[in-house]
């Protein structure tokens, strides 16, 4: 049974698209047939980060409007056999998306893929709502600062009340917290919230902590998802997150949390 995964946040610019590209690529690397769908109509940039912007012919809206079939619009990744991208339209606005159209496309994707990753636009309005509405699981991307945590909290409330699962009284969307752009030095200086603080406020399971890293910008400039940069800290952290998503228990890395506790000093990790 295909899984629909939304990458969402409320707040803009926190790393949703970077995460969608990395997680989608990571799942494909592990042999799962995966499609990444850009819901950010009007501001598409998933194709840039995936390095397929020059091969976009048809987009999500074309498929919804029946101008193209899904097969025509899906862009096959050049590096990985199992990976496809459905680009957003750059010439339309969010009103071009509608719930019936999205449902039709999602249902068709479900028949052909193991994982469908929905890259949500920022905000809590229509576009973000449609991106999460059909989700089975959600990765809530959060930066370690108060406003981002607040927006994630708000988004968690919407996932629990305004999704199809919630409206049908089905089992709720499974929620994962992904803390990105984490900078342990700034946490130590008290300029950013620590992992524990964010976990405590949002009280959901921590999928991973992605450090603030030069590798992310470098990768996106080259159109290569950062998870393929196996030497980089961010690439490794995303790799761990994908493994956890698939059920593996792995200790968290790259989080020199402020004031490490006694046990942490003894064992050097957490969990």
């Amino acid at each position: 049974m295909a899984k629909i995964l939304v990458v969402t946040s409320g707040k803009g610019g926190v790393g949703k698209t970077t995460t969608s590209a990395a997680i989608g690529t990571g799942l494909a690397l592990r042999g799962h047939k995966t499609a990444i769908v850009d819901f950010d109509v009007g501001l598409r940039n998933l194709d840039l980060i995936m390095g397929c912007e020059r091969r976009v012919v048809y987009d999500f809206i074309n498929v919804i409007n029946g101008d193209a079939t899904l097969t025509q619009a899906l862009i096959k990744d050049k590096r990985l056999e199992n990976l496809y991208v459905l680009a957003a339209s750059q010439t339309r606005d969010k009103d071009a998306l509608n719930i019936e159209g999205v449902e039709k496309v999602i249902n068709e994707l479900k028949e052909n893929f193991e994982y469908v990753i929905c890259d949500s636009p920022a905000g809590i309005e229509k576009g973000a709502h449609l991106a999460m509405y059909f989700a089975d699981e959600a990765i809530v991307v959060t930066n370690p600062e108060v406003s981002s945590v607040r927006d994630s909290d708000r988004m968690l409330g919407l996932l629990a009340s305004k999704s199809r699962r919630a409206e049908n009284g089905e089992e709720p969307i499974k929620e994962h917290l992904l803390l990105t752009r984490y900078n342990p030095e700034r946490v130590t200086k008290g300029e950013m919230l620590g992992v524990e603080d964010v976990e405590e406020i949002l009280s959901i399971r921590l999928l991973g902590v992605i450090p603030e890293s030069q590798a992310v910008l470098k990768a996106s400039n080259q159109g290569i998802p950062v998870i393929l940069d196996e030497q980089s800290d961010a690439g490794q952290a995303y790799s761990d997150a994908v493994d956890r998503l698939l059920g593996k228990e792995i200790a968290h890395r790259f989080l020199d949390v402020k004031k490490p506790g006694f046990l942490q000093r003894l064992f050097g990790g957490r969990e």
Partner: protein
Amino acid sequence: MSQADLLDQEPVFQLKGSMLAITILELVQNDLERLDRQLAAKVEQAPAFFSNTPLVLALEKLPENGAGLDLAELVALCRKHGLRTLALRASQPQLIEAAGRFDLPVLPPSGARERSLDPAAKPAPAAKPTEPEHRPSRVVTTPIRGGQQVYAQGGDLIVMAAVSPGAELLADGHIHVYGPLRGRALAGIKGNPNARIFCQQLAAEMVSIAGSYKVAEDLRREPLWGKAVQIGLSGDVLNITRL
């Protein structure tokens, strides 16, 4: 300082915050004759409701924002039916100007919750006092997030998880929170002064019992901020005590 000076320093008043339940008459059509007839019919159904009832006149739903409305006549008409106008809600400049002439405060437009009232539904007290009816508590086991609102109507609200900043809990009875309370909690909202709030960790943006409230700015000064507490009302003072 002389005796007189000292006396002069002694406060003669105290400012207090409160949240009153108030009736709002939202006028949707500029037709005072029909209003007169329809109000008369309502008075007949529920005379007790219409005796010197404080009232806010909401005029922003009127066509053209209520331009051309005769405010003096409207106020007199309400008065005739036992409704005493305390203030206006209006955005139309002429109405605001007229309100000034009558010395009526103009309130900002409301985004708050307002329920429809049926004055006839309320009264008719039974001849013999009936057994208090037990309403089941509302139990919530998942976190309540910012932007969410949960109301336990007629009973208690029990929350087994965290309440986020920006979330709002409402209950006619008590509120229990078995996680950090970081949002707003309003107990006894229909005016029950015996309602209480219990929480494992007081970190609230606001707590209120029967309309008497404290906001975070005051709560943070409490020595029990962050602790497990219960909050009750004595007189019109909110008491916060350790659990």
